[in-house]
């Protein structure tokens, strides 16, 4: 399966999962929504250019937004993490490209510790920005802090569970197309 087709499937799967499962399940707490859809952006291949990355992030967020009627909210947060992602990858992956020939971020490609840092930074950034935007129109400061911490914790738990349950097959970049 080509990379593009795989990612389109992934996109549909993540959006449907978010809209019909994670937004619908009875929550641990009323306002703590488990978020997972942005894992799509975290998993995008290394080869995507920065502009495209942001555009894809924006579209991902906006698609979710139109389902749950918050136009712009998730789009803003997704654009932010799509913007920050290349910087993080630059810091966290080995500089020597001969050692580094994986296609997309995964624990196997980046080693567990750097990958965990990568996921943690993007997740907390996404949630902080998202909850901040919500809080600007309504809410209290303590509510804001609790919500950021709790949603981040739940998302991280989900992401690492998924990484352990469904290890992605390693794909190498090769000279042969």
């Amino acid at each position, binding site marked *: 399966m080509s990379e593009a087709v795989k990612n389109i499937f992934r996109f549909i799967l993540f959006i449907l999962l978010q809209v*019909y499962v994670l937004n619908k399940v009875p929550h641990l707490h009323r306002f703590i929504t488990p978020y997972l859809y942005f894992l799509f952006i975290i998993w995008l291949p290394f080869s995507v250019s920065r502009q495209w990355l942001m555009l894809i992030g924006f579209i991902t967020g*906006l698609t979710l937004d139109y389902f749950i009627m918050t*136009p712009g909210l998730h789009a803003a947060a997704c654009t932010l993490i799509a913007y920050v992602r290349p910087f993080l990858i630059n810091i966290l992956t080995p500089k020597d490209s001969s050692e580094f020939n994986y296609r997309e971020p995964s624990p196997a490609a980046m080693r567990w510790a750097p990958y965990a840092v990568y996921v943690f930074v993007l997740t907390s950034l996404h949630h902080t920005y998202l909850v901040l935007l919500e809080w600007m129109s309504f809410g209290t400061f303590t509510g804001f802090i609790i919500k950021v911490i709790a949603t981040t914790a739940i998302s991280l738990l989900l992401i690492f569970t998924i990484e352990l349950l469904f290890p992605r097959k390693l794909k190498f970049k090769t000279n042969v197309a």
Partner: protein
Amino acid sequence: MRNIFLFIRRYRTFFTFLILQGVALWFLFSYNKYHRAKFLGVANEITGRINTQYNKVEDYFTLKEENRRIHRLNDSLLNLLPRNFGVRDTIVQMVRDSVSVDTMGTYRRYYSRPAVVVYNTINSQKNYIQLNRGSSQGIRDNMAVVNSDGSVVGVVVNVSPNFSQAMSLLHVQNKVNASLKRSGDMGTIEWDGVNPQYLQLKGIPKSIDIKKGDTVLTSPYSFNFPPGYLVGTVAEIVNDKSTNFYVLKIKTGTNFYSLHQVHVLANTDYDEQTRLNKETKRRIEENKRHRSE
């Protein structure tokens, strides 16, 4: 000039980021203010289709609850049938006219359309409900939405050709006029965004005797809601010492977890009433200005 282009070229990623952020925030804030989303017409049609498919499956899980509600409503309607009422005087026959406008001076003020909820959340502070009827089926902005057992659900805020979005009572910007059934006092229903089972009724003066379990109905002064639809029951009386008004905690009449079949109620006088209201305000403002000059 060349330097400017070079500068833009050099930081084009950052500029793309700024532009996309700007667009996203513009969407967000314009929606929060007017509940008019950009490109909602198209998006609503698509999400509506997908939500309908999902809803076909989900329906089965709420059938039992739905059935019970409809049965209860049918029961209350059966009690209203003219044949339940006898007339003792055999000379005078009671006739009930079913024509919408009759010569007796009564006319149909509200009419209802059935709709199905295709998407609904309760976990946000701004909850919206998507219905499978839109402007082609006669749904307009500001129509009232009530549940299949006749309790208040929300108000339509946005329509596309085949789907519409309603603001749920569980929305922090929602304000619905309500009155106490026992004393008839008016207040405003709001939601504090905390618990989806409880609303707040504000503006009831402390001079009124209120008991737990009192019924709260939609007020006769509301423009969108017909009077007498159930909003909820008083669950707790909070004595706010700083004002002369109670803050009442209201248990919602609607179970927002299991919304399925709803009725969309239209007020035929809505346009006229709101126009008159606006006109009055404008005229008063004008008078003020004249006087100050």
